[in-house]
Structures are given as C-alpha cells and as structure tokens.
C-alpha cells in the first residue's frame, strides 16, 4: 500500500518538476502514439466501413482475421515487426529499429484490428436507411464513405479512444522495437516497466498515474466536443 501513496505524491512531483528527461519521455510517447493512431486510422476506418457496408470477395475472411488479431499479444507483434525491420530483415535498410517511427509502425499493427473490427461492427448495426439515403442524395465513392463515417462519429471516436488506449498502454512493441533507450525511445509505459523491474514501484506508479491523467484530460476534451455535437 505504501507505494500507492508514494505514487500519487510522485506523480505530482514529477509533473511539477518539469524534469527534462520526463518531458522527453512525454514527447516520445506522444509522437509514437500519435503517429501510430494516424496510420491505423487512415487504413482502418475505410477498411472497417467497407467491411461493414459492402459485400466483396474474402470479406468474411478479412473480418475474421481482424477479429482474431484483436487478441494478438504485443510481444508477438513486436517480434513480427522486429523480424521485418531488423538489420537482417527485408526492410533492414530503412533503419527503423530503435526509432520512434519503428515503434509507431508496430503500434499501428496493434491498433489496426481494433479500428477495423469496431468500425465494421458499428457500420453493420448502423441504420439500414443511412447508406440508401446517402445514395439517393447522389453520394458515392469517397463522399459516401466520409458521410457514413460522419454519421457514426460517436462510434468512431469511441473506437479511436479504444485504439489509443491499447497503443498508449502497451509495452511489448515499444520494448522490442524501441528498446526503451533513454532520451530516444523511452515511452511512459516502457519507463513504468523499467522502474517496476528495478523495484521502484513508487516511481512506476507515479508515471502510470501521469499517463492516466493525460488520458483523462484528452477524454475530458473529447467529451466536451461530443456534448457540443449532441446525440
């Protein structure tokens, strides 16, 4: 119990201190998760909408794969991406190992099935009249896709929050691809793991709480936005 209290105090101190190393960790975390969520959204939302709204060959197989990948352990993704971008891997030349970009790719792989499956599921249960209505109004192609997504904005936001949660909370990929290198690829979660493995439970707790605080602020902002949109 002692380190829970220590964690709360620690979180406060860490934030107040503005320690440059801490700021660096924040920055790395933000860059990695931002980049990965961006990649996962750009690929995942269109694919998810397509899976939910249109019939095409292998649709069920793609969906099954995406659903199954919801339970892929981060370490496996880490290993997989590592195999591809390590020096000996096919993309070794790109020098992505132990970089923020490499971590972001791995995290995007992790977030993608969440975005795809949750979006597809939401589109499937969207009002059947929506797509027909948009078609009667002359929408097609990208505009149709965009309008369907806009109509489901609450769902997509929730999907995004879930994917963000998955990405920002994961350790396996960041550790394996990023390597938890101080000043370079140390994220909040790898730092938490690192501190915990050193027995610095108080510090681990403190960093974890800071992450939660950031997420709470983000969610607060989003909930404010949603309030302005109405149901």
């Amino acid at each position: 119990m002692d380190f829970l209290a220590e964690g709360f105090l620690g979180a406060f101190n860490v934030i107040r201190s503005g320690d440059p190393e801490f700021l660096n960790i924040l920055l790395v975390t933000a860059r990695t998760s931002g980049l990965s969520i961006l990649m996962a959204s750009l690929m995942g939302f269109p694919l998810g909408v397509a899976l939910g709204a249109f019939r095409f060959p292998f649709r069920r197989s793609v969906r099954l794969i995406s659903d199954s990948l919801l339970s892929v352990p981060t370490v496996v993704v880490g290993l997989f991406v590592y195999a591809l971008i390590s020096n000996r891997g096919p993309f070794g030349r790109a020098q992505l190992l132990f970089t923020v970009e490499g971590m972001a790719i791995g995290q995007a792989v992790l977030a993608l099935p969440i975005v795809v499956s949750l979006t597809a599921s939401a589109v499937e249960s969207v009002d059947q009249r929506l797509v027909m209505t948009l078609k009667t109004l002359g929408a097609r192609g990208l505009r149709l896709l965009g309008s369907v997504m806009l109509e489901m904005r609450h769902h997509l936001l929730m999907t995004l929050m879930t994917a963000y949660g998955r990405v920002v909370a994961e350790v396996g990929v960041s550790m394996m691809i990023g390597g938890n290198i101080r000043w370079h690829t140390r994220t909040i979660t790898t730092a938490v793991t690192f501190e915990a493995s050193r027995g610095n439970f108080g510090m681990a707790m403190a960093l974890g709480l800071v992450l939660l605080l950031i997420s709470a602020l983000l969610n607060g902002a989003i909930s404010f936005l949603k309030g302005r949109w109405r149901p």
Partner: protein
Amino acid sequence: MRAVMEAMGLQFGYGAGLQVVADRLVLGEGRIMGLIGPNGSGKSTLLKLLALLLPPQEGRILFMGDDVRGREGALRGQVTMLLQEPYLLKRSVYSNVAYPVRSMPDREDRIREAIRMVGLGDGFLDRPWYRLSGGEAQRVALASRLALHPRVLILDEPVSSVDREGAQVVRDAILSARERWGTSVLVTSHQPSWLSGLCDGFWTMGEGRLSGPYGLKGDEVVP
C-alpha cells in the same frame, strides 16, 4: 413524349419471400404516375429498383434510352428517391437540404426554394435534426430531394405523416417541379384522394406483380 425511364422484365426477390415482377414499365418525361397496391405488395421494393438502390435479379432498366447498368452511381442525383421512412442526417436541417447540392453555385437559392416548397419557413434551416416532429422530418427529407432538381423523382408515401394542408403543399411542390424542371414523378400513397388529384395515370401492384398503366387520357406513352 419521350420515355425518361423504362424497365423491362424486372424481377427481384428477397430470398424466400415475395417475388417482385415488372414486365414493362415506362415513365414518360414530365409524367406524374401513381403506384398503388396493398401493404406488402412490393411497391417500395419496385421503387428501390427503379431508383437504382437495389440491383434487379433479372431484366433491364433504361434511363433516357440507355441501360443504367454500371452507371448507377453517376445517375443517382438525376434519379432520386424519398424513402418510405425518411432518414435525416444527424446535422441541421440546412445541412440536410444542402447535402446533395453542396458543390453547386446556386446552392443557397436551391436550399431556400426547396424548404419553402415543402411549406416550412426559413427558420427551420437552423434546427438540428432531432428537433423535428414526424411530419416536419418528412418534409425536410423531401426538400433535400427537391433541391436536386431531379429528372426523376421517386416518392414512397411522401405525405404519410404530413398534415392535410401540408399534403396540398407537397402536391403543389410536385406539380411545380414538373413545370419548372420537367421532372418525372413516380409516387405511392395509401390516400387515393390525394393521389388522384395529382397523377396523370396509375400502375397497380398485387402480390408483387405490376399492372397498368391505367387512367391515362389517350395513349401518349411511347413504347
């Protein structure tokens, strides 16, 4: 008089149930035709086929003489439909009516014109979608189709929730669409009196099979 839309040997069924069959249907330019039949006879299904929303399992649909197959996306907008249970986008009334004409230069005029044609004041434009009664929503949905100035307007029970005065207003709107834009109309309703004051002729549906046309003055429909 030219035929804007023609259908030949159409067939469609939802798996086991009713099979909708239309051997021959011609919609002449500027014509307003009614479609009547009991519940479940397949009216809405036929209208969705003609509005290029469902792909026919058999038969062909022509628009201005050419087969529509493969051009459905491009033709929607020229051929538009008001669904039986209208769905409004989760936006303001203005955005709903503006949606189909977003990129047109005379957009604002079209929006205002359309909303007035269905008997709603400009004050409605600012309302969000959820602040509408059943009849108001139905009128807004119609307005967004009118804003398109469509060649073919397919209306599935457009006045089911509209009040009596509103029904007259909607009838006038349909007539003036024909007058101003040469719009051809295909419309269903379970209110025969409203329909007979509007249509040039009728088709009827019975257990999925189309018959007609009936009640035309003369036989101006070219084959």
